[in-house]
């Protein structure tokens, strides 16, 4: 079985920095990492490989300078082969362009039995790439998967949506996207990391996939932090009587704020 995991270098949203005056993020100062869901996608792929055999390949779009560490990370987790499509202004690519590049790559380097992606990226959260890839490739698909089972050669996926749990039974070739509920990703050991350091990944250009990139750029006109001003009130409670009073006060506050 041949599995492909496309991974994205995302802003570490836990370490966002903003210009206090304008509310704009200072993106140059934010570290970039592999997103948590992408990590779960690799883990899901590795587990399938461990139980069914095959290879796990990974693909990213970006530049060697910024992506090298993440590529090493994917190898350290246990992937077999990595590819980087080199695009200088990769941060300006929109979700559809990304999906297009991935599908073109899969056509040329595939066929893949399964393409596993993170359900959303850590930073832009569009969730567009996985469905776009599946429709471009005409693969069967299931998204937001948090449970994976293989029963008698049939793949059974579970996803939790607002109205309940959905069960999908699919056959390859397929595209799925996973959430962080799907698994707990393995932590690479130092030996894995040292081995990964020696592994090379192939570097391609969009033109190698017959893609004309000029069409695919998008300019983000503005990003801002929308912070809701917070109001805090400390209510001290020492006795049962205080509890009564505290409850009254909380109700009063909630009414004032028009929440109830």
């Amino acid at each position, binding site marked *: 079985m041949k599995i492909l995991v496309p991974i994205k270098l995302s802003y570490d949203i836990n370490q966002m920095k903003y210009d206090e005056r304008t509310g704009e993020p200072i993106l140059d100062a934010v570290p970039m990492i592999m997103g948590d869901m992408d990590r779960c996608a690799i883990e899901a792929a590795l587990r399938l490989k461990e139980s069914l055999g095959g290879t796990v390949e990974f693909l990213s779009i970006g530049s060697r300078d910024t992506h*090298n*560490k993440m590529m*090493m*990370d994917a190898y*350290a987790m246990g992937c077999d082969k990595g590819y980087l499509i080199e695009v200088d202004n990769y941060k300006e690519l929109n979700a559809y362009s990304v999906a297009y590049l991935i599908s073109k790559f899969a056509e040329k380097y595939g066929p893949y039995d399964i393409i596993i992606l993170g359900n959303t990226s850590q930073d832009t959260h569009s969730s567009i790439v996985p469905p776009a890839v599946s429709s471009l490739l005409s693969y069967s698909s299931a998204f937001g998967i948090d449970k994976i089972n293989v029963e008698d050669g049939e793949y059974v996926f579970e996803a939790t949506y607002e109205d309940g749990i959905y069960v999908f039974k699919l056959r390859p070739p397929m595209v799925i996207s996973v959430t962080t509920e799907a698994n707990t990703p393995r*932590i*690479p*050991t*130092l*030996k894995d*990391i*040292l081995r*990964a*350091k020696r592994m090379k990944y192939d570097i391609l250009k969009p033109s190698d996939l017959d893609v004309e990139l000029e069409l695919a750029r998008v300019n983000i006109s503005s990003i801002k932090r929308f912070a809701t001003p917070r109001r805090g009130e400390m209510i001290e409670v020492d006795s049962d009587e205080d509890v009564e009073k505290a409850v009254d006060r909380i109700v009063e506050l909630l009414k004032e704020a028009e929440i109830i």
Partner: protein
Amino acid sequence: MYLEFSEDEELFREAVREFSKRYIEPIWVEVDEKGRLPMDLIKRMGEQGLFAIPVSDEFGGVGGSLTMAAIATEEIAYHDPAVAIAVYALLQNGWPMALDQFGSDELKSMILPEVASGDAFFGIASTEAHGGSDVAGIKTFAEKVDGGWRVNGEKVYISGVREVLELPTGGGWFLVSKTGSRDYGHRNISAFALVPRWKGDVKDGFEPTVFEEIGRGGLSTGGFKLNNFVVDEKFLIGEEGKGFYYVMQGFNIARILVSAACIGSGRWALDQAKEWLTTRKLFQGRKLSSFQGINFKFAELYTELEAARLFTYRAARLADKIYIERKPGYKPQDLNVPVAMAKLKAPETAIRIYEEVLKWFGAYGYTKESNVYRGWLGTFSYVIGAEGGQNIMRIIIARDVLGKENIRS
């Protein structure tokens, strides 16, 4: 030196951080309170490759560097500021590395893979009751007998006594003992791998005790008597009479990791303080951090900690050049001053941080609930003397900088 880590070192730090968050942070208080290191945690740490990092992979080690071991120690200590788990890890990197440097292949292939997997412990047994600082004055004596040595003596304040008795395989220590003559001095000291328990019962002539300590709960400290304890000749480390040189180099290696543990724990304490100082408000809503009496001190401690960090990693990089990369022109003695400076600076900085942070926390800091005191007591073991007292660091620096002949009284 500009402190910069390579991509693989950064990846490794992230991996250790994730491991520590998952498996160490949730239990560090319980480990300190109960005074026991869970055996399954040790095993897991072994599987994760957190022991024997600077040991060659030929002998079951990870084949990494001392810098990597320092990174691991710092991160573990951040998530276990009481440092028992961090010290366990640092001992299982420092002393296996010393054995890897000086031991025979036979000895290394027996001991090191078991240490790397977390099934055995290998620490240091140097201190004796007359005073640990005076290694040349040790009294333990190994008498040459047919096919080996018969050892008599007593070691005290030795880390890992209970662990050697409880781990699946057992283990032992890098032992220093007089050989040939009992005279005072360092030329008649030899080093042995003392392995009182290995895949079975405790060997005859080994009489252990475990002490109760005020901090660093989890990793045991104890002592043992060696009563006609027989050591096979294959357990001699390196050459007879060279033990003092080997153990001093082992201390240099271990002290780098001790410093890393102290900066990890100190960083945790400063992070706790940061949260507290920027949220606690008094005197009509002023944040504690807004008082210069406090934020000046914070700034100073933050600076001191960064200085200690630089000392530590500079020494680690130098040790790697000497022992791992074996670069021509670098000698083991070159490490003496850089290491002594790191070991002088890091534990004292950690203690100073804890003493301030405890005060900043007010009465809450004095309660057990705050847990800050655990880091204080844990790191205090390193100003007291584990892996060498602070005055010994001063002696080393003064001796090497001013010259041996100029510091004699």
